[in-house]
């Protein structure tokens, strides 16, 4: 019940501030009129009554300011008390609290992990030079049932020699093999690349030496 009243007053404090101000004005005006009525009943003239009432009332602006401060203070008190009460609640039922914390931790953890993958695959730019200017070129062999087929060697050669649309052209033939040397055989992704491949992407191969055009 008490929390409900606090919530309502907090809501009023935030949203209905102008209405509360107007009501306060009206309330204080009513107080003043009542005061005047008392003076009149006691036998004062209308002028005297208003003057005396004004004197007793004091500064209306100060009164309003004090009331507004009380709104603020009780709102913040309410928030503070709710936080303290929540903390005491957690302390009094440690099992339930731990369960809640673990649930939150698992939830937040899994969401973070998924977001990490999504971030890395969808939002992070490719780690190459000018990733926005990289294009993939495919051969259109729709008639043969392959709308995206790799270019042949001669086609690639023509593309790099006879067109000026690209700053550079490189070829990569991706594949996968089973690597068996010592111990466990391993399934690895491989790619055969043309010598221009690494310079075009602006990266250095981690191991092995850079093949040169003459080594072809």
């Amino acid at each position: 019940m008490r929390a409900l009243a606090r919530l309502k007053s907090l809501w009023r404090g935030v949203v209905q501030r102008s209405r509360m101000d107007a009501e306060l004005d009206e309330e204080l005006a009513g107080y003043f009129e009542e005061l005047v009525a008392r003076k009149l009943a006691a036998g004062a003239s209308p002028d005297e009554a208003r003057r005396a009432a004004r004197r007793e009332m004091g500064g209306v602006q100060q009164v309003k300011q004090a009331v507004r401060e009380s709104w603020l203070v009780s709102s913040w008190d309410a928030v503070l008390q709710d936080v303290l009460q929540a903390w005491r609640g957690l302390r009094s039922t440690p099992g339930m609290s731990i369960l809640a914390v673990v649930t939150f931790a698992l939830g937040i953890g899994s969401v973070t992990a998924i977001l990490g993958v999504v971030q890395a695959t969808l939002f992070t730019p490719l780690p190459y030079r000018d990733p926005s200017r990289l294009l993939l070129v495919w051969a259109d062999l729709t008639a043969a049932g392959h709308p995206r087929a790799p270019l042949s060697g001669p086609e690639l050669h023509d593309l790099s020699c006879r067109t000026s649309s690209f700053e550079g052209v490189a070829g990569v033939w991706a594949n996968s093999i089973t690597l068996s040397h010592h111990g466990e055989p391993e399934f690895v992704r491989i790619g055969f690349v043309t010598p221009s491949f690494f310079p075009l992407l602006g990266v250095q191969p981690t191991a092995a030496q850079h093949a040169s055009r003459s080594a072809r």
Partner: protein
Amino acid sequence: MAKSTELLRGTLDLMVLKTLELGPRHGLSVAERIRQTTAGTFDVSPGSLFPALHRLEQNGFIRGSWTQSAERRRVKAYTLTPQGRRQLAAEKREWAKVALAMAQVLES
């Protein structure tokens, strides 16, 4: 109540709750009632009264509603809520304890 407002803040809240125990009253009526019952010792100014009323209302101890005064003017009258009634009982007990303790200290 010009002086020692800090000390008397809790006291004023208690007095307002007690004043509303027997029925709804508007602001001026609360102030007058307090002045009468304390034979003028506590003359509550609007600057103390209205913050107290609004504080109590925000805490859910009293509820204000617009009604008509005896002279048919629109006034905001305050009613004690059930929660305010419990608060009044609790504060009365607390105050009795403090008063007794003070008396014991002063008479020792």
